[in-house]
């Protein structure tokens, strides 16, 4: 955004002020994440930079908290990580299947009461989480599913499907329905048409919806706080307990791992979004 040569001085000044403001906001957004990295390698038990770290003394850095995260005594993180992945994977599968099928129905032009049904389907995204948490807890308690993995998976399917419905309906809006008619005219049955024609074309939307559902489940803490027993502890629950009780550097080691995971998810989601846009012909 270079300014043209003829720009008057006071606009020039204004332009630099604007760039400075933008820089400050970007810094505000991203800097907090980068504080965690160096501190997770702290050799000491404090959550601030030690004198040694400021001098970049190699002895001030260590993998101590990563070792504690993996091998520590009475260590909750192993179980939490296992639970988190199991719950998130099953919740994602459930959300993707239910959400994609529903999106196919919703984007059909024959769908009756489209607005009302769409409102119900995306309501878990609109209603504040704390209210969803209370409502889902009441249901799970009645159904005898509180403090079970099944209960938490079902709860996360509820919270994850709106994202799948939205992304897949968006992908389907640019979908050329004549290709499915062509397949049908060539003798393919609806299931075969879906698997061979429709699904490959809407796959980027399905996967990015699935990623949203996965992250929602993996990061969800409000509903799990109501539902989980000791056996169902997840990474967010452990972090929540840790942050409330004592802020140990082990949490920072876990946080660093989570940031790496979210970077991977971000890269995947971005690549998929671009591919989907290219297929829909929105590429600039």
């Amino acid at each position, binding site marked *: 955004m270079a300014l043209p040569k003829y720009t008057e001085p006071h606009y020039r000044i204004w332009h630099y002020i604007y760039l400075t403001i933008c820089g400050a906001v970007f810094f505000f957004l991203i800097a*907090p994440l980068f504080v965690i990295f160096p501190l997770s390698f702290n050799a000491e038990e404090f959550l601030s930079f030690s004198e040694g770290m400021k001098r970049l003394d190699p002895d001030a850095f260590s993998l101590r908290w990563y070792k504690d995260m993996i091998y520590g005594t009475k260590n909750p993180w192993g179980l939490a990580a296992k639970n988190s992945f199991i719950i998130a994977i099953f919740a994602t599968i459930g959300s993707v299947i239910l959400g994609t099928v529903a999106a196919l129905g919703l984007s059909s032009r024959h769908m009756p009461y489209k607005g009302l049904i769409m409102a119900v389907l995306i309501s878990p995204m609109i209603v504040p989480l704390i209210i969803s948490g209370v409502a889902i807890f009441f249901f799970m308690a009645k159904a005898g599913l509180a403090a079970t993995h099944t209960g938490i998976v079902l709860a996360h399917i509820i919270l994850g499907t709106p994202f799948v419905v939205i992304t897949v309906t968006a992908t389907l809006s640019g979908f050329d329905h004549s290709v499915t008619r062509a397949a049908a005219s060539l003798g393919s049955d609806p299931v075969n048409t879906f698997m061979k024609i429709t699904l490959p074309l809407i796959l980027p939307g399905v996967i990015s919806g699935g990623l949203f559902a996965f992250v929602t489940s993996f990061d969800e803490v409000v509903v799990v706080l109501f539902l989980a027993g000791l056996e169902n502890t997840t990474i967010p629950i452990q972090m929540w307990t840790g942050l409330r009780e004592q802020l140990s550097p082990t949490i920072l080691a876990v946080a660093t791992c989570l940031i790496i995971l979210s970077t991977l*998810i971000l890269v995947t989601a971005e690549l998929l979004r671009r591919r989907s846009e290219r297929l829909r012909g929105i590429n600039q």
Partner: protein
Amino acid sequence: MSSETKQILTTDGIPLEVSLKKAERKNKVKAFLLVAPLLFFLIITYVFPIGDMLFRSVDDKMVTQMLPKTFKAMENWDGQELPEEEVFAAFHEDFIKLVEDKREGKLSTQLNYTKNGFKSIIKKLRRKSKSFEEGNYKEQIMSVHKRWADVEYWRAIQRRAPEFTGQKYLKGMDMYVNEEGKIVSVEEDRRIHRVLWLRTLEIAFFVTVFCFLMAYPIAHLLATLPMKYSNLLMICVLLPFWTSLLVRTASWMILLQQQGIVNDFFVGIGLVADDNRPEMMYNKTGSYVAMTQILLPFMVLPLYSVMKTISPSLMRAGKSLGGTPFVAFWKVYFPLTIPGIGAGCLLVFILAIGYYITPALVGGASGTLISNQIAFHMKSTLDWSFASAMGLMLLSGVLVIYWLYNKIVGIDNIKLG
């Protein structure tokens, strides 16, 4: 033309109109069947439970069922003076049954919600009632504690007779039904919920304003920069967006603590003295700073997607017609971004109003919000009907905001990502 003679028939001999309608209906059913699994799943696991909350919030059968005989006997009581022996006898009968079932503790908790002071006198009554003689229960109960001889307490019991009650909603607004049946506010210094509602609105409002002020310039920059730079900067927005909420809250806890980096920096540039470091966490400041940073991407993304569609030639046209860049911006560019502003503000405000985790961790006592209170009653006091009532009050607030938004901006004008 008469429909009997000129009707168009399909090859099967069925009128075309009928055949088309049949096909249309078949398509409708097909589309609905696809949506049905998710729709019914959500109705059973989500929509009904919210209805259940509504029921729980007004349900007051518990006390009604614990003291059936007492309430029957009270029907003839005018509530002016102490009830007759008949009521005391019925109460004694109900109470003995409750003690047998070991449920008198629940009764005392419930009655204590209505009027403070029931806990101790019910405990005392349980102890003394073992040695009660038959007959003249009025005297015997009144001799247990002087509060049993106070008509106020009997009126409090009578107020719990109806099966349904709106008192939890009143309590959520720091009001109650007094002895004369009028709705009044609790004493000034006990109005904790009103303070919380106002604080929730205040924090949600200012977080929305801060997010808007910070997001507008960077969304504009992202939308006008060439792709290769904007993609790089977009990572600064998307990485926090995809990162765990707890990780981001943890980083703010590290930054804002008294020996933290922000305070170190302030001391370093001489803004504050080393022995006088300000408390930036466990108060409102903590909630403001952390919530603004966490919700900022939700404002940037809708703004960006709207700004991306605005052609730069519009601004140039405005300038070429003699407007200064500021006039061109204000008259041409800004109005075009309103759908994005609306969507972003709605999203951030609604997320902020129901926020729980971050205020609970960095907010301290003065930075907690209404959702913290709901969670507190769900997990600690186990007053689920009160938690439901407050949850529904919050939900109706959110729905009102959607309704207003739809009136003013139109929900179809929302653009998300």
